[in-house]
């Protein structure tokens, strides 16, 4: 089927939350914006909010409203996607950051995109352990589920490989929306000797970054290149984020849509995108250059190469 400006591909992105998290959802939305600009598509972004009872209805409503492609993400939405995939076979579904069980040719109209975040997390962890002077580093998790913990699994492994007796403090905030709490947690972790913090906790994490800024500690950003995000509005903040573990959801979705339009995109399968696909990675910007010594950077490059080549396979929570 031919898509054109007159007859665009109708796409709905259903967020089980709202925009403005400066990472996960915003990144997906950015991909849609890019598609809007470069592809013959018509995009509708649906913010279903944080009330879980409203997620399935939002998704069902999208599937029901004549969109060609319906996009949603994480294990929270997968069950609803599979249920609707059977109900609306003519609609294509993209399930990012989780995957249904395709065995036996199930769900031919579903494409699952998974991210080997632990591979990038590994590199960040390695760098973090190296730049740490106290030998203690910290992570802050919003809540404990795979899309979050997968970062940490890789991060911890990387850190221990860099420094076998590294001490890793970890705290679960229990919320993605309490920056004051994130800041307190980070301060407490600094109090316990940590000098690098890796928050994986939405705006709770933003608070942690602020703590790092105010106490001259270092931080690792998450999902998107957070140093660049802050670069203009809050330079000092950017100054302490020596890298970010990027999960290029937007980019991968853009590519999937492009391929769909070209008719080259296969559905009914799961794509695990890692470092080599450029769907995940760590930001190598000016701050990285400035804050991480050359030889550490070289070691990281080497490890990256190993992972891409498959020689090194970091653990992962995304089975």
């Amino acid at each position, binding site marked *: 089927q031919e898509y054109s400006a007159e007859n665009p591909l109708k796409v709905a992105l259903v967020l089980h939350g*709202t925009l403005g998290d400066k990472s996960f959802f915003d990144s997906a939305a950015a991909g849609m914006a890019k598609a809007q600009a470069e592809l013959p598509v018509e995009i509708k972004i*649906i*913010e*279903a*909010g*944080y*009330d*879980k*009872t*409203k997620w*399935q*209805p*939002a998704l*069902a*409503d*999208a599937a*029901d*409203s004549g969109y060609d492609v319906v996009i949603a993400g994480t*294990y*929270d939405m997968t*069950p609803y996607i599979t249920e609707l995939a059977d109900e609306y076979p003519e609609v294509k579904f993209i399930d990012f950051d989780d995957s249904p069980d395709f065995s036996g040719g199930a769900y031919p109209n579903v494409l699952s995109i998974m991210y080997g975040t632990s591979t990038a997390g590994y590199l960040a962890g390695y760098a973090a352990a190296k730049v740490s002077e106290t030998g203690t580093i910290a992570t802050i998790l919003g*809540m*404990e*589920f*795979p899309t979050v*913990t997968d970062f940490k699994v890789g991060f911890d492994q990387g850190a221990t490989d860099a420094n076998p007796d590294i001490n890793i403090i970890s705290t679960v905030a*229990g919320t993605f929306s309490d920056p004051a709490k994130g800041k307190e947690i980070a301060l407490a972790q600094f109090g316990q000797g940590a000098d690098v913090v890796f928050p994986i906790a939405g705006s709770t994490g933003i608070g942690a970054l602020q703590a790092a800024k105010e106490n001259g500690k270092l931080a690792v950003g998450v999902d998107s290149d957070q140093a660049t995000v802050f670069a203009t509005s809050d330079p000092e903040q950017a100054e302490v984020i020596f890298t970010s573990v990027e999960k290029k959801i937007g980019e991968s979705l853009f590519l999937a849509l492009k391929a769909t339009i070209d008719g080259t995109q296969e559905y009914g399968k799961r794509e695990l995108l890692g470092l080599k696909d450029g769907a995940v990675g760590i930001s190598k910007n000016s701050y990285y250059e400035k804050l991480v010594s050359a030889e550490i950077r070289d070691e990281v490059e080497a490890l990256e190469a190993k992972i891409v080549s498959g020689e090194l396979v970091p653990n992962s*929570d995304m*089975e």
Partner: protein
Amino acid sequence: MSTTAILARQSRWSTFRKETLRAVTAIAVALLVTIIVVLLTSKAPLEALNTLLTAPASKPRTIGLWFDDVAKLTVTGLAFSLVFQARQFALGVQGQIYVGALASSYVALSPIGPTFAAIPLGIAAAMLAGAAWGFIPGLAKAKLGANEIVSSLMLNYIAIELCNFLVRVQLRERPGVLTSLKFPDAAVFPPLIPGTRIDLGLILALVATVLVWFALYRTSWGLKLRLVGHNARFAEYAGIKSSLIMVSAMTAAGALGGMLGAMFVQGQTYGKITVLFEGGLAFEGILVAIVARSRPLAVPVVAIFYGYLRQGAQLMNIRTDVPAEVIGVVTAIIILLVSSSFSMPGKKWLSAQFGRRAQPAGLSADGAAK
């Protein structure tokens, strides 16, 4: 005497008239405000409003969503009505939902799950758990005079964390996933209308309505409860154990809250348990109860209207360009305006006893004209 009787009847009728009139005007104004807000925030305001007002009834699926809300709002509304009528301001329904849901999940995921007993036992377990959760603040108040607002609010937080914990370490589908496996079909409420969320829950809600009404107005327990609500000292004097009534009222309400928990996780909505599944619906029961003046039979009626509004707003959010947050603002304004014409049970009588000036007599005409 007979004239007084006539006057009394007249007054009852005209108060009713006044109430309805006020309600209608309130809703009208509320709609006006909504229209203005939508006009300000939407590029296609007509479509938005149309969605708000017609979408819920447009398709079986949306009607399903609407009545699923009605069922749940009814039950939480009933739970609050029960405690309000006993003049207890326990706000514990949310916590009861979580513990109830946990209990029924354990049943559904146990060997009983696949059997016919899964649904009745699940509901029973949920009601027990909820009752226990309602009993604690009741007892604390009766025995120690511990303010039930605080204790019930705290128990809400505890229940939520408890659910987070158990789901994460025990009920989870696989490590790190914060939801359980789907319950066996035998453990999930069958839909009354296939392809919709309308399930056994709706029936449970209606049954609960009748039961609560019956308990309050046809049993001596209910009369005692209302007498305690009107004047605890008098109840004691009349030989009613008011503390016992308080506790039993909160416990019964707790059982309702627990049942609602089962309706969530065993219902078509989920058919499994997950963290933070309730989404703040519990508290909307306060609105329903107060607008319904804590009258059990009025609760479902209010729930139908409020549920429609709720779904309309939700669909407006999904389908149109009206931003999600604006929905919240609109709902709030509507609550304010509608509630402006209602008040807690017994407030009038209280103000009478406190001899406070009653509102301007809308009836002096009828009165003088006798």
